[in-house]
């Protein structure tokens, strides 16, 4: 698994946009980018402090994998996009993308495509057959991406969630 995640710089084109696997030194940047994502969508629970991210991204059990898109501006690398994925299992290996975010000024410049391509390569290295995401119909931007990029979609699903209170209620002795 370690060798599958090596190889940092996947793309560097004329636009100076670089797509690479995140490292521990990126934690502060990642935290800032992820907080920007929370400004656009409702996330009732968030663990975005540096220590929680460090544990979840680089601890003995890894909960999320991801890539950053960055651009060099006046000699400094600036993060402009992030893609986050989990190892998922649909009776076979699947890489499930949970977050794909690009700063508004950097959209429509191929950054999303670059991040998705990085995810595809990562999925191949892990012997996944598919990458996957869920598209909630209310998010029309994502729905449009899904229409263009997905090989196939499976509508007719509904999603259920349990939070901590629901779990505790279920486990309470009756």
């Amino acid at each position, binding site marked *: 698994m370690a060798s599958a995640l090596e190889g940092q710089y996947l793309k560097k084109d004329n636009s100076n946009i670089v797509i690479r696997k995140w490292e521990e030194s990126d934690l502060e940047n990642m935290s800032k980018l992820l907080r920007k994502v*929370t400004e656009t969508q409702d*996330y009732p629970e968030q663990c975005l402090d540096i220590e929680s991210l460090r544990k979840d991204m680089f601890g003995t059990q890894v909960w999320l994998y991801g890539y950053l898109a960055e651009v060099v501006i006046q000699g400094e690398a600036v993060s402009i996009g992030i893609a986050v994925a989990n190892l*998922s*299992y649909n*009776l076979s*290996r699947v890489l499930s993308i949970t977050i794909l975010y690009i700063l508004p000024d950097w959209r429509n410049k191929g950054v999303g495509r670059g991040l998705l391509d990085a995810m595809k390569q990562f999925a*191949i290295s892990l012997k996944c057959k598919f990458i996957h995401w869920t598209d909630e119909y209310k998010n029309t931007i994502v729905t449009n991406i899904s229409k263009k990029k997905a090989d196939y979609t499976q509508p007719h699903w509904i999603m259920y969630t349990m*939070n901590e209170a629901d779990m505790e209620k279920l486990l309470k002795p009756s």
Partner: protein
Amino acid sequence: MATGPVIEDKTFLEFHDNDIIVRSWKVEDLPTVLVLCKKFAVTQNMPTKFMTTKKLAEDGFGEHPWFHSWLAETTTSGEPITIGFAMVSLSWDMCRGLVLEGLYTDENWRKKGVARKLVKAVAEFALENSCKYIKWMSLKDNDNANSFYNKIAKLYGPVNECYVKVT
């Protein structure tokens, strides 16, 4: 890269109601579990021909497990019989969570609390590992499953599952 597994599954989470026991899978359970997995796959319109115990062993019990799993068994006729399973993968959506990837009860054992016991095992695992949520998909027209889910969880809403083939 992380080595593991370090999440410690409790080997036994015992619910003795009606002699139904829920516990984590072991490698030796795989031939029996594979039969249930294939039945589950048929209900989800998924192909079954590439499902093997070898793949389940590699993916569930290798150095980096892709899933954590439980089975429900009963000993009412003396020998333990496997009657259901639950399978989760680790998730992260601004905090730790689990995706319930599979929940299946053998058709002869439905409406006896088996699924509830399996979900309880998943919930206990989630709380032990500081997960803030469990989420899962259900087919809109699966009325039996959805009537159970509506009792224990919140309906988030309709979603589209999108796939890109990479191989």
